[in-house]
Every structure is written in C-alpha cells, then in structure tokens.
C-alpha cells in the first residue's frame, strides 16, 4: 500500500514536471521511461511494474486530450510485453537471484 501511495505521488509530480517545466526543453516522456525501467529492473515475480503502468497511464490520460483509459491500456500492455520478454528470453543474474 505504501508503495502504491508513493508511486501515485511520484507519477503525479512527474506529470506536473513534464507538462509545466520540461515542455520548455524537450519532448522526453518521463512517465514512459520510468515505467520502462521499473519493469526492466524489478524481479520477475514482482508486479509493481504493472501497477506503476496503471498509475502512470492514469496521469498521462489526465494530462492529455485522450479519453481516460487510453494510456492506461497502452502502458499496461507495454509492461506485460516487457515482463513476458524478460521472463521467457532474458536472464539478468543481478536481478533474478535464484532461490
């Protein structure tokens, strides 16, 4: 629960930063990048990457002109795809410590 509240705050601040501060500099999508890395670097049995995709997608939807649900779906599918690739085809010894 603590993790979810922290990520809610984290993605909200990221969205604010993106729409107000970073717009003057670049078109980097920090939320997308964060979700990509969360999924890439978490242990394969954890699901926090998927939850963060839902939260990040929600804030992308809020601060964009699309209907709510559009980016939630896209980021969720992206997270699932990363997880699938990592579970099936890639083994990173540092992040997948065998029990």
């Amino acid at each position, binding site marked *: 629960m603590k993790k979810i509240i922290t990520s809610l705050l984290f993605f909200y601040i990221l969205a604010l930063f993106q729409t107000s501060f970073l717009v003057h500099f670049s078109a980097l999508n920090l939320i997308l990048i964060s979700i990509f890395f969360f999924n890439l670097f978490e242990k394969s049995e954890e699901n926090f990457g998927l939850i963060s995709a839902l939260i990040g997608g929600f804030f992308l939807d809020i601060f964009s*002109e699309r*209907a709510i649900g559009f980016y939630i779906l896209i980021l969720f599918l992206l997270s699932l795809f990363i997880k699938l690739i990592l579970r099936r085809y890639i083994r990173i010894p540092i992040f997948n410590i065998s029990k």
Partner: protein
Amino acid sequence: MRPKRGKIVIAIFGILFVVFLNFFQDEVKNFFYSISLPFQKVLFKTGDNVSDFFKSVIKIKDLKIENEELNRKIQEALGENVRLREIEQENRTLRKALNALPKNDFELFISHTASRDIINPDSILVTGGLENGILKGMPVITPERILVGRVNSVYKNFSEVSLISQKDFSFDVKISEGENSIYGLAEGKGNLGLYLDKVLLNAELKEKDLIITSSLGGIFPEGILVGEIRKVKKSDLKPFQQAEVSPYFDIKELETLFIITRW
C-alpha cells in the same frame, strides 16, 4: 485457484472503474487541473526562465547581429506605423462620411496557459472554462493579435486549445497583395507545423508573404495574423500550389492569451 479468481475480480473492477471515470471525464480532469494549477504556474514560469537563460547563453554570439536586424525592423515598423495611422484617420473620415462607423472589436476573455499536453505538442490547456462563458470552437489569440488556435474541449474552469498546427485542422486564410487577395486553406501538419494549400496556380506566392485569417469559413474572424510563407511548393502536376508556413506564435512564449468570446 482462489488467488487467480481474486485477480480476475480486481481486473474487472478496475476496467469498470476506468469506464465509469470516462462518464465523468470532464469533472475528473477539471479536478486535477484545479489542484495542479498553482504548482504548474510556478513550474511553468521557472522552466521558462531557465530555458531563456540557457538560450541566451547559447545565442550570445548571434545577439549583436539580431540586435542590429531588430533595430532596422523597428525603424521600418515606425515608418509603417505612421503611414497606417494616416490611413486609419482617412478611413475614419470616410466611414463618418458614409455613416458607417467601425464595428466594436472582439469581446475577449483573458486566459493563461496552464500546461501543455504531455503527448500532443499541438494542444495546450488554458484557464477559463464553462464558468467563464467559454464554448467549444472559440478562437484563441495572443495579445499581439496572432492566431493561436481554437477551443477544443471545455471543462468547468479550464479549456483545451487545439493549436492551428494540429494535424487535420484547416481554416481559410488569405494573403493580402494590395487590392488583390490570394485565398487558400491553411492546414495543420502536426508538431507545430503548418502549410498552405488550395492556392490557385496562377497566384503569385512569395517567401515572407504574410498570411491572415479570412472570414470565409466562419471559423475565425477576419484579419488575424497567422504566419508567413517559408517555402513555396509549386508543381504543374498538382492543381493547386502549396507552401510551408511559419506560424507567428511561439509555443514557448504562450503565457497570456485571449479567447475571443464574440466577434
């Protein structure tokens, strides 16, 4: 088996919740925009200042040349201004003589940029919404009377503005050439790009020609500055000529805006 069923139930509830949120989309978005506005204002201003600082450091070499060029333009503009004042005076006298006093100018609502769309660079969020009498389709201009775009969606206290560069957005424009005006269609091509289309092949388009709105389509009021022609594309194979257009508004400088509520 049970945890799997639990997950499915949670997923179904999640989907239903998102669908449910869509029915109150305007209220939900308005709520988030309202609580975010104070932070966004500060961040927007800070970002603008920081970006200006870095820009000036990078461009310090070009500043002298730019300064000279601007001074020359000021001189030209002053001369033009004097000439236009004389014409205005003459115009008023003629109108008086014809008993046709000029109509009132636009009714405006002062608005401020709240944020930009995360994904779409051709969309901005501005203050002012249904509570302020803003309606979908109202034109948005800068204080210098440069066309910015059109209100696309309206929330309670905020409005989403589609910039004129929004892909598939088109409106009638004209290029004034003394007494003869060339008419065409300005079309957004996304990513802050704009081009001119449907201009007859025999019309003479030149680089730096000024483009202003025409009231033909009824989307925008007549005579608002849009931009200037950057590059003319003429081909005998096409029935019309096209041109790349540089919009006059600077996306990074859009702070105070006017929404035309009546014209």
